[in-house]
């Protein structure tokens, strides 16, 4: 892992200006160049999951909380796309820009600061998450699996949740000595979250200790909220998830920018 303690920078709240958007805009421009290819996986994956797991496997599964299995997993697919969209953007893709392409070095020679470069990357990660999850939402809608008008708030959830995962990802990027390093968080954190965050079965069917542990996973809260907004069970228990995300996101945002400053400023 990269040693960050030799950096002369001190921990501080990032000072950001509108210049963050010039970094965000750079990534958007690249994305728009290959937009068709970018959207293809986001479009195909949820269809495959809904068909194979929802309708296929779901035929053998009892209704969960009164709803067919396919309705149970549909909001989870939206939440998972938020996590994948931002996490992979701010690990692998950010690392390529930082390490191989030296894009960050080129940008910080202009009036844009290191803090603004990282903040721009994080906002871009959130944007990717929102774009991906919107496509999944459209697919879910096309299958007739949206049963609540609250679904209109899903893009807001995706942006916030996306920012949280982008910042979490960037914390790993700060320590990554090479690109293979990201296999660790992918297999040890992302894959377990994908399976255990109340995505394909309720967390209540886990053993009691594991159920408590699942509440500590960030994806659990995005899944809870997505399910509430898409399936129409907007209830008081969701407040916990809102608070969880509202607290974790700014902490991770400030932390990840500081860690990256320590990596980049020597």
């Amino acid at each position, binding site marked *: 892992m990269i040693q960050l303690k*030799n950096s002369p920078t001190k921990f501080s709240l990032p000072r950001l200006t509108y210049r963050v958007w*010039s970094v965000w805009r*750079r990534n958007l421009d*690249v994305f728009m160049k290959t937009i068709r290819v970018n959207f293809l996986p986001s479009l195909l994956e949820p269809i495959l999951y809904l068909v194979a797991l929802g309708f296929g496997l779901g035929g053998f599964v009892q209704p969960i909380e009164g709803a067919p299995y396919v309705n149970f997993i549909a909001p989870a697919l939206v939440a998972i796309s938020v996590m994948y969209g931002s996490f992979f953007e701010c690990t692998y893709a950010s690392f390529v820009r930082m390490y191989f392409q*030296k894009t960050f070095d080129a*940008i910080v020679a202009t009036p844009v600061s290191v803090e603004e470069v990282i903040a721009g990357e994080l906002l871009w990660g959130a944007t990717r998450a929102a774009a991906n999850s919107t496509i999944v939402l459209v697919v879910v809608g096309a299958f007739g699996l949206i049963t609540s008008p609250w679904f209109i708030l899903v893009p807001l959830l995706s942006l916030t949740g996306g920012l949280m995962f982008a910042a979490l990802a960037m914390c790993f990027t700060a320590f990554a000595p090479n690109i293979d390093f990201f296999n660790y968080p992918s297999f040890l954190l992302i894959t377990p979250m994908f399976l255990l965050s109340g995505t394909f079965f309720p967390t209540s069917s886990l053993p009691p200790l594991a159920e408590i542990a699942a509440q500590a996973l960030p994806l659990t809260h995005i899944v809870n909220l997505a399910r509430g907004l898409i399936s129409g069970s907007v209830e008081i228990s969701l407040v916990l998830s809102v608070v969880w995300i509202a607290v974790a996101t700014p902490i991770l945002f400030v932390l990840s920018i500081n860690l990256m400053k320590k990596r980049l400023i020597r």
Partner: protein
Amino acid sequence: MESQEALIRAHNLTKRFGNFTAVDKIDFRIYKGECVGFLGPNGAGKTTTVRMIYCFLPTSEGELDVAGMDVTKHSREVKSLIGVAPQEDNLDPDFSVLKNLIVYARYFDIPKDDALKRAEEQLTFFGMQEKRDAQIDELSTGMKRRLVLARALINKPQILLLDEPTTGLDPQARHLVWNEVRSLRKLGVTIIITTHYMEEAAELCDRVLIIDNGKIIEQGRPSDLVKKHVGEDVLEIENDRGLLETLKKEFSSATFEVVGDRIHVFSTQPHGFFERYVELYKGKNVAIRNANLEDVFLKLTGRKLRD
């Protein structure tokens, strides 16, 4: 020049990485319109110094002002005055040639129409209009270097920092870059070049700073430094047993250097001093050549001179 206000002023400037001191309490001034070369072997501290000027690296100690502004307090303003062509190409491989310039202009808050106009101007100046829609990986090394230069000029900088601008270029591309640097000098841009090509420094620079082990060990006009340290002519003779001793007796005030199987004799005597020895040592591959900045550089930084 001394009466002019310095555009860049360093005092006791120091940079440490952990326990390693890369730049060690250096003082220098760069004046408006000058073209100054930072010369030094690899790891001497020249790139580190340049990186502190464009606020890429924070200083560890001492003062560094650009256009009267402290780099630690006004990094944004300082960076907006500077154009940087870094050592390693960091062009954006995700964009075409033209788009590289336009996206870079955006980081400087240059409005869209203006950015396009400036990008076109740069491509014309560098003769790259035909390549405007090419992707970066389709460009030759020379083309990439020139695009890096074009990008460094997009904000119309007062100061241009060129970190080893011709490393890895073929002679054609190198001369093209030199010509472009000369035209920029004529436009009044203040230029700092780091290089370890002495020919390049002698061609382009009004003044050079020779840096070694993080310290400035000599500075001045290239021709003055040559005169001061190695004189005007160098006599080169094939080495032979006892020849060095004979030469030492012959040229009591000269300095000698043995390089491989040849002896270099440096003398501060006026031009023409060595003429008659060409006849005398005929058959020993003898030659007289002009002393140059490389001789100065090697004398000050590297291979030990015997005297």
